[in-house]
């Protein structure tokens, strides 16, 4: 029993050490990091949109972390933005950094596609805007009505993607998700990056994602 205990205690100690280096120390260092002054906290609606993003697993295809151009040149050159810093995520709980780029990085999607109509149409059916897209369509975030009521957000879907009669209106969830997309705009300068970003490198607008 003594030896069995020794193995288990040894195993636990080693993991404790790893926890210190990979959990506690990064936490201490990163929570002391400066929050960029231009970063705005999420509004209630944007936070709700973020929950819709989590519930429907957008993170499994989209990252939110452009890499340094000196390391991975494609990220910035595609208009995904400057490399992100820990402070950019100060209001993110949980983090949504992502590990796949089946679709493009979304760290600055709000700057690339600032139109809410674009966002809603794209959510209803991505192929209505981008030919050959493999992103799922999200019809359950929309309602099909004959006559939109007052205050309904009507989304005009180009044929043949829309319904033959009636209108498509966005639900509160769809509006919140679209607002969250628009909030994903980190084009402000990061105070902790070594040097200021030259202006010409700012993400180009209206670039196809």
């Amino acid at each position, binding site marked *: *029993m003594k*030896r*069995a205990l*020794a*193995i*288990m205690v*040894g*195993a*636990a100690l*080693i*993991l404790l*050490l*790893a*926890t*210190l*280096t*990979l*959990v506690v*120390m*990064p*936490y201490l*260092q*990163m*929570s002391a990091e400066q929050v960029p002054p231009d970063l705005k906290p999420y509004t209630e609606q944007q936070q709700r949109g973020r929950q819709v993003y*989590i*519930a*429907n*697993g957008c*993170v*499994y*295809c989209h990252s939110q*972390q452009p*890499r340094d151009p000196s390391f*991975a*040149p*494609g990220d910035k*050159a*595609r208009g995904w933005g400057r490399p*992100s810093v*820990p402070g950019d*995520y100060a209001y*993110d*709980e*949980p*983090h949504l*950094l992502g590990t*796949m*780029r089946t679709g*493009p990085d979304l760290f600055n999607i709000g700057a690339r596609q600032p139109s809410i109509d674009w966002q809603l149409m794209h959510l209803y059916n*991505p*192929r209505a805007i*981008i030919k*050959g*897209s493999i992103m*799922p*369509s*999200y019809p*359950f*975030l929309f309602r099909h009505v004959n006559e939109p009521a007052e205050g309904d957000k009507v989304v005009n879907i180009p044929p043949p993607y829309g319904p033959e009669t009636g209108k498509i209106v966005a639900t509160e969830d769809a509006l919140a998700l679209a607002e969250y997309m628009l909030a994903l705009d980190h084009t402000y300068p990061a105070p902790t990056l070594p040097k200021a970003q030259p202006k010409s490198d700012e993400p180009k607008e209206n670039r*196809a994602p």
Partner: protein
Amino acid sequence: MTPTIAILLIITFVLSTVGLLLLIWSIANNQFSHGQAAARTIFSPGEEGHSEDPARPSDPTFTGNTSEQAAAIEARWTADQSSRTAVLTWLSSSVFWLLLGSFFGLASSMKMHLPDFLTASEFLTFGRIRPVHLNAVTYGWASMAGIGVALFLIPRLFKTSLAGGKYAVLGGFIWNIGLVLGLSAITLGLSDGEEWLEFPWQIDILFVIGGALCAIPLLLTAANRKVEHLYVTSWYLMAALVWFPFLFLIANLPFAFPGASGATVNWWFAHNVLGLWVTPIGIGIAYYMIPKILGKPIISYQLSLIGFWSLALFYSQVGIHHLIGGPIPTWLVTLSIVHSVMMSIPVITVAINHHGTMMGSFGRLKDSPTLRFVWIGALMYTVASLQGSMEALRSINVITHFTHYTVAHAHLGMYAFLSFILFGAVYFIMPRLTNWEWPWRKLISLHFWLVSIGILIYVVSLTIAGWKQGVALLDAAMPFMDIVKMTLPALQARTVGGALMTLGHLVFAFHFIAMLMRSGAATEQPTLFRPATKENAQ
């Protein structure tokens, strides 16, 4: 960053001191001088040189030449029977979750190239069924089957009956309830939002309780053990059962780690689930099955212990290689890369033992299903681990990160390595628990070929496509949509591979149920231990 460097230096110092102390302790306790004698603890007296393999009727079963040897074999039969209810609870559940997870995986794969397939319902959207797949196969299939096999091996390794098996049965029920609730929560859109940690933390408490209930029989049986030396398999199993609750608890602490530091905790956990939970279980099983079926001890017992401690030291710190290029401190990424490369030490020691023991016995792969599954699993462990060390290098990672290449690598590890070893173990265990032979040899063969060809198509197509995708992503001259189109054939091939694997699982599950119901004819060659007990009864 001066304080950080100071802390790093202190930690490095503590690390080396702990390593040194462990080494001194090992030497002082004769861990190294046991040598080859310790490697033979898994055999009954006189059994060495005889294969213990249920699927080889032509091979004479070793029943003991003397009454003492026969008594040892009978004691083992008793030990096997003592774990019957507990093992069957965990294994039967795992087979159910394997089927469920396979269907969700296949549907996820189809949605990747058929984006309008099943989109009407939010419950079946890609972003929900994909995490259902991952959690069902990780916590349902791999973890439950792993615990089931561990519960079977513990009494055998300690040469005594399983004590406190009812706690493990109760733990199995709680674990299953956790899975039902957790997978439902994901389907309803209540995910916690971090990969590998999707289950809401309130539900995670059930897994901690279920797992802890399995630790009770482990400790009770260890206290009753009748062996002088603890064979290396028990080292791996004991460590895994210590590590998992610890990991799962810290990573699920609600609201403790916001923002970018949440990402480091997320990947510290996610890679440790692989490295400190399923890997030690997989390696530990192979360390038992390969020598048992060949009837000869592993070639270097000393190496196996070095492999164990170096795995613990290095694997526990590799997680942050999932965030290379991400918004976290560079020292942290570098630390994980260094440890990822150092992982080649335990991997090579394990490879020498697993494959070195096989030398000269490769012909046995022709008749033994258990050996074939387990050894191919062990081989894929070597391949997947060395590939993983390479993938952690910045120059490689800049290409493979964010691509389908990583998905192929993950399946090489979780499936071709771990699941193959678990399949092999189930083929070994079931006849000993049910006292019934596998009814249809051809079904075992069909299962093997379906899953082997399936995973081959899966890994090869996604590895190639993922690499091309990664190279293309670095060059902004290639439009994003062109890259998507380029990967489509591989995504379709993955559906073909996944469908074959799912079919294989259906065959496996059918055969498993047949075993539980004792279907088919009673074979001429009975289950291994029955002649022994009959002779002793006379």
